[in-house]
């Protein structure tokens, strides 16, 4: 499905996948970390120390070397409130940086094409309940691994966003969110959306209300998809300046920028163009 949209951007590709069964159901506080590490001696032990310092307990490590860099997968046990501290500690080690953290969710992204991504990380072999993906054609911020989509908020794990468009009142809203304690990892305007929605969800709104609020508050052209452990939501800007098509029916729910991606699934449901300012959500 993503390969059919490769022509929309070749800068980077990424997916966020929600696993059917979280790492462990017994304790409920196990998380999967994906950590980007430079291939230097001692990096792994530094990460392990950092995790321990933040009160985490490593259950398993899966090293995955791609070229000169490691994209390692750690399964850890920790309390939810220490996650942010843990991310901070790991990022302080200089050799490593956290790519994703989640109880249900894993984000896999790299500066490459969809085909390459699949080859490097065996994305096709992953199974799960739902997921989102993105190919990037960068416009405003730099092209690197950390500016690739999907984005997540480390303070509110298991929620990810992919976005097409620009948020033109980025600094205004970022300022407000930072005052409320959200930590921005990059200068990408798409990252703002995940913090914005996470903020709304923390304040007790449900996904649909959060998306509707975002259509009112965020300025500029956009269409974006938000994924949560039990839901997916899509929103389009008031003027309908970015595409979003939804395929619904026969037990399938799919969203894409172009019809060709939905057709690639092989289902024949009704494909509908989202109206300007429209919000659609799906629940598991």
């Amino acid at each position, binding site marked *: 499905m993503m390969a059919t949209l490769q022509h929309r951007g070749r800068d980077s590709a990424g997916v966020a996948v929600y696993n059917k069964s979280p790492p462990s159901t017994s304790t409920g506080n196990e998380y999967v970390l994906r950590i980007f590490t430079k291939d230097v001696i001692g990096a792994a032990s530094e990460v392990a120390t950092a995790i321990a310092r933040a009160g985490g307990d490593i259950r398993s490590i899966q090293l995955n070397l791609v070229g000169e860099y490691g994209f390692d997968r750690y399964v850890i046990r920790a309390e939810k409130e220490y996650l942010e501290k843990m991310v901070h500690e790991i990022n302080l080690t200089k050799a490593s940086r956290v790519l994703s953290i989640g109880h249900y969710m894993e984000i896999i992204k790299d500066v490459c094409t969809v085909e390459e991504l699949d080859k490097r990380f065996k994305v096709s072999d992953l199974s799960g309940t739902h997921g989102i993906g993105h190919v990037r054609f960068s416009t405003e911020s730099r092209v690197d691994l950390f500016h690739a989509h999907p984005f997540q908020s480390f303070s509110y794990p298991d929620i990810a966003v992919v976005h097409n468009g620009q948020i033109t009142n980025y600094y205004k809203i970022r300022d407000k969110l930072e005052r409320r304690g959200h930590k921005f990892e990059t200068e990408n305007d798409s990252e703002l959306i995940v913090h914005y929605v996470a903020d709304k969800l923390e304040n007790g709104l449900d996904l649909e209300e959060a998306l509707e609020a975002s259509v009112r508050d965020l300025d500029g052209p956009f269409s974006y998809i938000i994924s949560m452990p039990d839901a997916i939501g899509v929103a389009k800007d008031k003027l309908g300046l970015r*595409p979003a098509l939804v395929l619904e029916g026969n037990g399938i729910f799919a969203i894409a920028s172009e*019809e*060709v991606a939905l057709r690639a699934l092989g289902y024949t449901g009704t494909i509908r*163009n989202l*109206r*300007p300012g429209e919000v659609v959500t799906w629940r598991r």
Partner: protein
Amino acid sequence: MEKVTHATAAETIEANNLSTRQLNKAIKDLSRRTERIVIKDPKGKHHIAAGLCRKVEIDIEGSVGYFVGTMIDGPKIRIHGNAGWFAGDNMTSGEIVVDGHAGNGPGQGIYGGLVVVKGDVGDRAGALMKRGTLIIGGNTGIMTGLYMMGGEIIVLGEIGDYAGESIIGGQIIFTGDVPTLGKNAKVVELSEGEEKRVREFLKEYGFNALSFKKIVPMSPRPFYKSSGETIAKVRRTYIRYQVSIDQTLCNQCKVCMKFCPQSVFSSVGEKIVPVRRVDCVGCKVCMEYCPMQAIEVIPTPTHSNSTWNSYVVDDIHRKAALGHHLVRGMGARRWFPHFDDLVLLCAQTSRPPIDHYREPCNTETIIGTRFAEKPLKLKAPIIIGAMSYGAISKEAKLAIAKAASNIGIAVNTGEGGMLPEERENASILISQYASGRFGVSANYLQSADAVEIKIGQGAK
């Protein structure tokens, strides 16, 4: 759907494994020797048949991506499926029929021809249309006919809100309920003759509808508001130029009174005196024409180092009287080199050492030596900056074109399209393709010697 028999057999292209570039090249090549092309399995490719200028029939069996048939001139394209955004964008002539639905902006900016979408369309259908016809069998999204300048849109389903937003020409004919209208749009009834014409026209494409209304512009210049005040009417108080006549030299020939564009001079008794000195703009025409050289025009000295000097204060007074800012050429604060300041050392443009007896030494510059079929040959490495018609006048454009032709260098059309006279007068003309794509059509790009793609600009 009836089958049409054709004199020549249809050629088929399997599009699945072709890139868009390869597909379009195949279409172009086939269109030279056949009248009908069938494209199988288009896989939602974008830009299919872009810029095709032959009278050929193309059948596309499947859904296509964005910009199908953009900038075409002549072909008839039928899409047995859905179309993405901007079907038939900026086309000059021909026909595009979409059997399914279409995305945003079908028939955007068309110069002529016909676009038919049998299903629903997205937002901004027929935006910036100039001529031609757009028929939509289903419903439309918001802002149908946005910034429309001419032509006709016919909507047979429900028409979306803000229809005819900022429309300044043409008409949008619709059947359903009256939507929320856009700015400058109004709804009027069709005359009986017109209603009959539309009905007959629609029958050809298999549509039946009974009653119509249409949306037309309220005013052709909705956003132009004259304040009624002009700079000439504003009474000035600050004397910017000191005008004086040496009465011992003056022979009362009154040539200054005749030529002063601001009527500064009047005869008082036997003398000619600069009565309305406040109106002087410092053109010094009087000084030029005075046979006795009796007139002197000197700018009033001002304390230029203070922010609120008398010049600035006068400007503010005038803005206050006018009610808006002063419209004038901005100029630049920095000093820029003039053409006379350029010194071209021919030897520097070739490889040294040079012996002009043995090899030619000149400033000729060729752009596109590696890949271009027709490289751009300039007699000097100078290209005149892009200035559109509208930013500068037609006279200025022609003067630049003639001057550049004389010295064998290139001129640029700028953003707003090409004047036919400019093409005639310029020996080397570059067409600018900017993001707004104003005036961009097949003919515009083909009649140029080169195409400049503008990504951004620093001027203005």
